[in-house]
């Protein structure tokens, strides 16, 4: 029915598309976590990308220590995600929250998280070395549907991060903590006088966002390498997704993440991987000039 060349092209294109979708879904997860922290605590976390790597390294340690025979990635998620939650919670409670009582707390928190980013990068280098690590694929093999071919790894990454996003949305809308998070984001003073412990909500929010980005790290580090000094670039990527989608717009962030994931994959396929970053930068510039409020932002 198709010529051999066409079949080959479809093969490759479907592979690129699903790769873009799986990357995009992880970006969406990361961008959501970033929007969450900013929306609730009004402070920007410059070490965000380094928690991505933390997820990757925690998983790597477990695999080196245990191998994959004990439940594989299921065990990894069960162990690592609570660890990330704990690290995030403690970080907020003991490092960030004491600064919030000061007059120029925004600047102080910015300095602190910048310092933290530097610290974590160096910590990773000391502990794990500068050599890049990689994680085994969560699932091997490919799925062929007619002329199209998808790798199970990409499908799994896509489904898991989508699952994470849905769980996050459900939690925000249907649980007691989610209700408190929304209330604090919309009106901290109003939340205090109805009995919400906003210090705890700040810490929980930070912890949840750490889990989200760290989970993204575990997923994406199967395709990329874990690089101790890549935190900054990852944070910028999450930021571009957020800005392109519209700061504060959850739906915008989701759409933006998939557009960027797919765009990056196709640009990489056609022009080579390093052009992906350039395309991203052009997109950011274009957004800032043409539509500064982002795809679905509220505008001025």
């Amino acid at each position, binding site marked *: 029915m198709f010529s051999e060349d066409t079949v080959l092209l479809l093969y490759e294109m479907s592979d690129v598309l699903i790769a873009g979708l799986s990357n995009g879904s992880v970006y969406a997860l990361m961008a959501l976590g970033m929007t969450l922290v900013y929306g609730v605590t009004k402070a920007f976390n410059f070490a965000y990308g380094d928690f991505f790597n933390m997820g990757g390294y925690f998983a790597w340690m477990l695999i080196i220590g245990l191998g994959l025979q004990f439940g594989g990635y299921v065990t990894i998620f069960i162990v690592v995600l609570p660890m990330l939650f704990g690290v995030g919670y403690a970080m907020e409670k003991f490092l960030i929250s004491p600064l919030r009582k000061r007059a120029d707390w925004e600047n102080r928190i910015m300095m602190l998280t910048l310092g933290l980013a530097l610290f974590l990068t160096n910590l990773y280098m000391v502990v794990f070395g500068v050599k890049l690590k990689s994680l085994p694929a969560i699932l091997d093999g490919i799925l062929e549907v007619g002329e199209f071919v998808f790798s199970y790894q990409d499908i799994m990454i896509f489904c898991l991060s989508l699952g994470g996003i849905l769980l996050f949305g459900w939690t925000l809308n249907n649980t*007691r903590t989610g*209700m*408190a998070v*929304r*209330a604090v984001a*919309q*009106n901290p*003073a*109003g*939340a*205090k*006088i*109805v*009995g*919400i*412990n*906003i*210090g705890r909500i700040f810490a929980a929010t930070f912890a949840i966002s750490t889990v989200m980005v760290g989970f993204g790290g575990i997923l994406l580090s199967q395709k990329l390498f874990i690089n101790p000094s890549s935190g900054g670039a990852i944070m910028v990527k999450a930021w571009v997704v957020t800005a392109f989608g519209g700061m504060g717009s959850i739906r915008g962030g989701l759409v933006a993440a998939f557009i960027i994931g797919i765009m990056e994959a196709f640009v990489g396929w056609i022009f080579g991987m390093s052009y992906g970053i350039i395309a991203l930068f052009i997109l950011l510039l274009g957004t800032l000039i043409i539509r500064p409020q982002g795809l679905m932002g509220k505008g001025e």
Partner: protein
Amino acid sequence: MLKLSNVTKRFGSLVAVNDLSLEVEKGQIYGIAGPNGAGKSTIYNLITGFYSYEGKIEFEGKPINGLRPYQIVKRGISRTFQIPQTFPSLSVEDSIDIGNRFGNTAAYSRKRVDEVIDFVNLNRERKHKTGTLDLLGKKKLMIGAALATRPKMLMLDEPMAGSNAHEIKALMELIRRINQELGITIIIIEHFMKVLTELTETLLIIETGTEICCGHPAEVTNDPAVIECYLGREDDQG
């Protein structure tokens, strides 16, 4: 029920509350008045744990110094702000449910939400987003959210501000019902003297953080010091 002893609050060199003592008895409606910047809202902010201060505040015989706002709510003190503080994209019933869930230590009961919504008469708007309510609606909602925390004492900060005569009447009626039907002690800060003389049993007048006079509203409003302090303010006394 509530007792402030020699409470002082400084913001830098400004003394917003100056060595103030007062006592509110259980079941009463207690009024606070004074010119703009007198320190009225600051007193609320101290009682509800928003700022630290010198002196001592006790509620039901126990000191509440140093407690955080959410802990004070759970002790049974709830309040409103001068400007209604709402959660714009939450619905009326969810906003009230937040007070119900977080503001007390009682077991959760959804019924409480319906009772409060009925009490403040927001049944028609219960599914509406808070941001779409008019000013009176927002005020009723804030009072409802405060009531949902099951308070023993409710502190209202200028509840009548920006309201017309009709709305003032409705709000006064609501405040009276909260006091009489629910047995909740009330403190009210208000600029409208008429509201205070009609509602309160004790009235405190302060200026620059200092007590000018305190007593039965009829006596207080005839006190020469108060008349002097309020001279030229007849126009906005409703």
